């Protein structure tokens, strides 16, 4: 199957402030996005793809840095989400660090000084929620002239956004495709997020979130945060079969600091790579958005009542048996809430070995279901 080839990101600026769930607002912000395929004449074939923790608007194709999009195996000509039939939009969420307005950008509310136009947001970037992201995405979609999306698609945190669309702007979409997601985070999930956040904020280079002006990056914290994340994205069996107890060298070095095991080497490598490109404040913001997502909360903890708003929408939910971060049982809670409201839903529980990461991989059973579901959407568009 062909890839999209070179793709170019675009920026859209919004001068009207975005009201946030917290009561604060985001002043004059920019969203970076990519689109693939052609919007059809009646503008009925648009699919929005929402990104998870460390991803971006760059969903598919190859960008100017030669980087392939994070869901390129799913999105492209002839792929399950076929860009010859759909107009696909990838957007970077505000607060992120891939081009949309984020903590590393100038805070318009800050005072200009003699040598600087003002201060960058840093820790002062407002706390954004999944719902706030969806509201920002809505403005982009409307500005693109789309009155109703054929579908909103996302995995993990992206899946939460896809769900939030059906609750917040149900008239704006027909289908929700939510993969490896959950109606909220469990205590264990929040605990992992908290460890990651503490690793970042206790890094001496964090400077209360205003490290930019010190011209340093809290890389140590970011590394540890990423290492923890990586452990939770993999299934124990998959980690065992990939690394086992494999050693770096034939002889033990009897060192507590040196890398002895391959798994250590892998995690350190992932941590190093991540700390080179990811923003510490973004990590804090995004993990917080994950923690806060809980649509049932406003309905006395009743998820079925929360999903009353989604009546008439159609859903595809997918989970993976070895995903212990967003376990199948969490997707089944969503299925139940949809069934209680007599909402059309299909649910596939894919027996893949890769843990949470499976949603980014190309398991043939998973992709077959995705392909058939999108074909069904295409036949209606």
């Amino acid at each position: 199957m062909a890839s999209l080839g070179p793709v170019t990101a675009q920026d859209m600026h919004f001068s009207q402030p975005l009201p946030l769930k917290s009561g604060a607002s985001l002043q004059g912000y920019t969203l970076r996005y990519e689109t693939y395929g052609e919007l059809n004449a009646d503008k009925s074939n648009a699919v929005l793809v929402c990104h998870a923790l460390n991803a971006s608007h760059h969903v598919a194709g190859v960008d100017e840095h030669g980087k392939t999009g994070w869901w390129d195996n799913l999105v492209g000509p002839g792929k399950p989400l076929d860009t010859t039939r759909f107009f696909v939009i990838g957007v970077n969420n505000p607060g992120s660090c891939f081009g949309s307005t984020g903590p590393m950008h100038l805070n318009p509310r800050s005072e200009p000084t003699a040598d600087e136009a003002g201060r960058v947001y840093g820790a002062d970037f407002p706390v954004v929620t999944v719902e706030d992201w969806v509201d920002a995405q809505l403005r982009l979609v409307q500005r693109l002239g789309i009155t109703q999306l054929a579908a909103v698609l996302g995995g993990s945190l992206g899946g939460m956004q896809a769900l939030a669309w059906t609750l917040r702007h149900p008239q704006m979409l027909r289908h929700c495709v939510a993969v490896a997601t959950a109606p909220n985070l469990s205590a264990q999930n929040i605990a992992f997020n908290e460890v990651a956040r503490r690793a970042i904020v206790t890094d001496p280079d964090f400077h209360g979130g205003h490290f930019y002006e010190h011209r340093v990056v809290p890389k140590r914290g970011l590394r540890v945060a990423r290492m923890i994340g990586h452990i939770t994205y993999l299934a124990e069996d998959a980690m065992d079969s990939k690394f086992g107890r494999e050693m770096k060298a034939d002889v033990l070095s009897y060192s507590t600091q040196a890398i002895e095991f391959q798994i250590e080497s892998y995690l350190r490598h992932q941590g190093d790579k991540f700390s080179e490109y990811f923003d510490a404040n973004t990590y804090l913001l995004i993990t917080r958005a994950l923690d806060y997502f809980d649509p049932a909360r406003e309905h006395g903890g009743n998820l079925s009542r929360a999903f009353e708003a989604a009546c008439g929408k159609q859903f595809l939910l997918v989970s993976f048996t070895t995903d212990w971060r967003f376990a199948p049982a969490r997707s089944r809670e969503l299925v139940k809430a949809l069934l209680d409201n007599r909402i059309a839903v299909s649910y596939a529980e894919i027996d893949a070995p890769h843990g949470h990461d499976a949603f980014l991989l190309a398991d043939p059973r998973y992709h077959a279901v995705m392909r058939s579901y999108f074909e069904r959407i295409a036949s209606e568009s």
Partner: protein
Amino acid sequence: MSSSQDIELMAKLVPMGSRVLDLGCGNGEMLAYLRDHRSCSGYGIELADANVHACVQRGIDVIQLNLEEGLALFDDQSFDVVLQLDTLQNLRNTENMLRETARVGRIGVVSFPNFAHWPNRLHVLRGRMPITRALPYQWYDTPNIRVGTYSDFEVLAGRLELGVSDSFGLQAGRVVRHWPNLLASMAVFKFERGGVTP
């Protein structure tokens, strides 16, 4: 697998416009038929990946679930009709599934291969387990872990107070109402709330 005639005959047990839950819905053939010919809506439950995919392909809403885990996802009386076609013989917890079928649906329809069909009896008389169109497996690799007869089910339905409102056999695409236990390879039972307990 049910033939297209069997599907038509069993579909007649489903009132027009019903909300249907099909337990072990296979490739979604029955639900597609009910949708297209009897204006029904609903969901299938399937465990096999290939069948789940086949359902999505034909636009049937399907939920991938192991029926042995029960129907906790579904509220009492949340469906007009619950189908359990050619599925019962593959389930360990037969009794529980029948109770669950009656709990979730106003009407239940169950079909399964009738072990007492006369060719099966001949096989057993000759000292061998039957291999027929309805029971096409060798004894050592059959997925049918519950083999029962039309008459056996009448007894069980009575004990579970299922309220059978109709029952017949199916043989070669025809309804068999005389001596179904002897003359039909498939048994079909319809039960409903307030129906007669045999």
